[in-house]
């Protein structure tokens, strides 16, 4: 078991190194520090100012080790990223790490309830649809899913804001207040939009999983020994379907920290998603590459966690 975890982690470290290399190619080799500096300061900035800016951001050295073994951007990039020293934003010179710390709270307060709520809504719904397989209820359910999947998330967001905010005048359309009393008021609408916009693909996915499991031989055995349909669904099918469901959920957990780009930016929640959008508008390369790096790091950890959690749900899995 320990050997397995170590091997798995070692591969994960390799992947993180690969990600860092790709990021370096994208953000240093393709978009050179000079380009970044000019984007931050404008085309008319005098060369001296560019140099000072590059110095402040640590970009004032050669790119590759073969240009200068001791002092180059590639090694510097690895060293800084691996030690979580993310430096300053290319756009407004604020320390990136502080902003990530500040954004994580609002992001998590949106994404954690969103994940839980999605599961709570989607799994029972898909169990019902799968229970009525090959009937009109099932066909109707699948049709509605495809319909719901075909609507762009943008339209869900705009539609919900329009419907609830403008026509019904219920909730604050956007904004954020982290005090416990106000939080539900500001989160209700984003949560509803988040759950509804993902519902179609979620229900369809879980339905497929449930149908897959309910066509297995052991379900026939359970029927032959006299178990009722609901007992079969909950006791046998759901228990086996937990394996693919778990994979999906555990893999989703790392991204909870990343926030939700669309929902946050639209509803004015000052999380990491909004931060990413701001970074795009402001050509803030250093923030963006930090976000990609953190996302990959979390994903790799999530994958190891998924592999380990298999062992909890599936007795067939042994770590060798």
């Amino acid at each position, binding site marked *: 078991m320990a050997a397995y975890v170590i091997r798995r982690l070692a591969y994960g470290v390799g992947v993180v190194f690969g990600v860092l290399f790709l990021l370096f190619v994208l953000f240093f080799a393709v978009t050179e520090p000079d380009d970044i500096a000019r984007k931050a300061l404008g085309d008319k900035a005098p060369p001296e100012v560019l140099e000072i800016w590059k110095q402040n951001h640590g970009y004032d050295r050669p790119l590759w080790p073969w240009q200068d073994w001791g002092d180059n951007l590639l090694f510097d990039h690895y060293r800084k990223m691996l030690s979580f020293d993310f430096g300053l934003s290319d756009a407004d010179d604020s320390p990136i790490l502080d902003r990530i710390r500040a954004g994580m709270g609002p992001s998590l307060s949106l994404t954690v309830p969103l994940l839980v709520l999605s599961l709570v809504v989607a799994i029972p719904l898909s169990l019902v649809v799968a229970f009525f*397989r*090959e009937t009109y209820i099932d066909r109707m359910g699948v049709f509605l899913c495809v319909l719901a999947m075909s609507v762009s998330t943008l339209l869900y967001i705009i539609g919900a804001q329009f419907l609830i905010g403008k026509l019904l005048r219920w909730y604050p359309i956007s904004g954020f207040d982290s005090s416990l009393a106000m939080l539900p008021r500001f989160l209700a609408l984003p949560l509803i939009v988040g759950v509804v916009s993902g519902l179609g693909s979620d229900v369809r996915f879980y339905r497929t999983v449930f149908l897959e499991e309910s066509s*297995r*031989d*052991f379900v*026939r*055995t*359970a*029927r*032959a*020994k*006299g*178990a*009722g349909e609901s007992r079969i669904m909950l*006791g*046998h099918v759901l*228990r*086996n379907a*937990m*394996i693919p469901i778990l994979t999906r959920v555990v893999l989703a957990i790392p991204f909870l920290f990343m926030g939700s780009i669309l929902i946050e930016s639209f509803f004015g929640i000052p999380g990491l998603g909004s931060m990413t959008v701001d970074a795009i508008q402001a050509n803030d390369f250093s923030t963006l590459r930090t976000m990609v790096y953190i996302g990959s790091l979390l994903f790799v950890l999530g994958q190891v966690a998924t592999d380990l959690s298999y062992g909890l*749900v*599936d*007795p*067939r899995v042994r770590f060798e």
Partner: protein
Amino acid sequence: MSALLEVRDLRTVFPGEGGPTPVVDGVSFDLDRGEVLALVGESGSGKSMTAFSILRLVPKPGRVVAGSVRLGGEDLLGLSVTAMRRVRGRRISMIFQEPMTCLNPVVRVGEQVVEAIRLHEDVSRADARDRTRALFAEVGIPDPEARLDAYPHQLSGGLKQRVMIAMALSTRPEMLIADEPTTALDVTVQAQILTLLRELQQSRGTAILLITHDLGIVNELADRVAVMYAGRLVEIAPRVPLLTEPLHPYTQGLLRSMPARGRPGEPLPEIPGVVPRASEWPRGCRFSTRCPVRFEPCAETYPAESHPAAGRRVFCHDVERRLPSEGAR
């Protein structure tokens, strides 16, 4: 004395391209208490579907459309869903061909047997577990206490089938349906499982509907044999006369193609052609497309039942022709 199970004119169909396609078509037979009846036929002959029809477990979108299945005089096809559930596992149990996939992989095997008991009897978990342990010992599972907490993947195929048998017998059913119970097992294990089934059948007096394509197994276990071809019953007779003097040309062909009958080194005679698909069945006798003795009426009309001897029934124009007095009766 009336039989334990009386199946009459059973008809099960699946929706197909050109309307519903029958997979079981007008099948009738009886199963007496404590008797072993073997249902024999090639794959696709409808023998498994007959079994599923009895338990009303025909996979969707198939369904039983006609006939009756009487267990102790009560028609199972007319029961409510809940009442039928009390029959399954309680009065009729079933074991399957693939012990590997028929047990739930994420539930301990003891727990699966306990579930079967507690579905039908109001006993505590601990009592059900005690009974399961005893059952495991009875079906010859070594170290039953430890095996209770094993997961299916930790057991060999033979052990899994023993667990299935323990589960099936856990509620002392009157009847057991065994669908190719040894096909997926190693040859040595096959013999052990057959011996076990025979011993249990004798000690408990359970009637068994044994579904198989293996005439060797029939010879070891069965009291009577029913032969199916393309959804129809073609011949039913006690074991010895059926195996020694089969009447239906299909039964004859089936017996001839058994290795034990031929001499070593000689090619086995086989029945020419293949079982036609349900959509291509002839109007008359289903076997007429491959039958060596077919004549005019065979392709046009289905042969009536003839009774060439006590306890024997056969559906064949040729037999009818050769037994004029019988055919007239």
